[in-house]
């Protein structure tokens, strides 16, 4: 249920995320040592434009990537198609974008 356009969007978002995922995993391995705390997380991210850009781009790419991925799964496994499938794809993309955007904002400039 995808054409060349959606395929390109999914593969390009994957390529964008490749370095971001490596960075995210490295941060997780580093940050998990000695446990997690709000101060530790915010100490790293607050007022940092670099972290805002890093995770902002990540959220943008993952919203596109996951929306197309879930679109395919919902079509192949649940048989959703047509307008319903289109609405579902947009709902996932925008939902993740808004929720992810809120959390990136919360740990950086809020």
């Amino acid at each position, binding site marked *: *249920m*995808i*054409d*060349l356009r*959606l*395929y*390109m969007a999914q593969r390009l978002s994957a390529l964008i995320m490749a370095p971001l995922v490596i960075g995210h995993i490295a941060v997780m391995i580093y940050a998990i040592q000695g446990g997690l705390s709000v101060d530790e997380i915010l100490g790293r991210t607050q007022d940092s434009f670099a972290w805002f850009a890093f995770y902002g781009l990540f959220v943008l790419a993952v919203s596109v990537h996951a929306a197309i991925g879930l679109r*395919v799964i919902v079509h*192949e*496994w649940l048989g959703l198609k047509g307008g319903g499938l289109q609405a579902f794809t947009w709902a996932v993309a925008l939902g993740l974008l808004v929720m992810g955007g809120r959390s990136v904002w919360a740990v950086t400039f809020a």
Partner: protein
Amino acid sequence: MSAENGSLKVTVWRGDGATGAFETHEVPRQESQTVLDVVSWIQQYADPTLTYRFACRVGMCGSCAMMVNGVPRWTCRTHVGKVATGDSLTVEPLRNLPVIKDLAADMDPFFDKWVKAEAVHHPSETRHDPIRPVDTETEARQQADVGIECINCAVCYAACDTVAGNPDYLGPAALQRAWTLYNDEREANPEAILDAVSGVGGCHNCHSMGSCTQYCPNELNPLAAIAGLKRETTKRVFRRRRND
């Protein structure tokens, strides 16, 4: 194995797909017996109304493919000894296709998709032109030669879970044929092929699970062919960008 080796319990599908049931027959076991032999035995000695399809019996025509114990196979070249679980065998019509009757699947949707994929030769010359030799050494020709032995048996199509979940998907056989023609230097309109495989049911729906390649009886590699189409269509996007 000899004829004294007892019998097989063979379960075959009877009906038109939507309605029908399994039926079990005792079939004597023979040396070097193929699944097609077994099906033919049932029709000749147990129930003449059993419907199935075959022609050449030597793996050339591609008409006898069926599901054997849940796996798509060319039945004329599949030995019972290799696929039976103990002494039982289940034979069903090819998956992912409508059933005409019993073991005969309706191949129309399968071949309709070949046409949809533009897997049809667009001639670049006429019969009045002199015959031009084809250079067999070029990279493109080698790519075309790899897929040319396809016998249209639809085993790959029945093996593909993407076809099962996404009825619009053109499937491995049609796409491999499209890739073969795309690489043929005598093809007049390769761009039309790339257009045809870029739509909603096109090559980009493939998840590279490789069941087509795993079960192709001729050991072809539709997975690689589809990857080739994805690569060329992707390249073309950037080529077009540059030309704009």
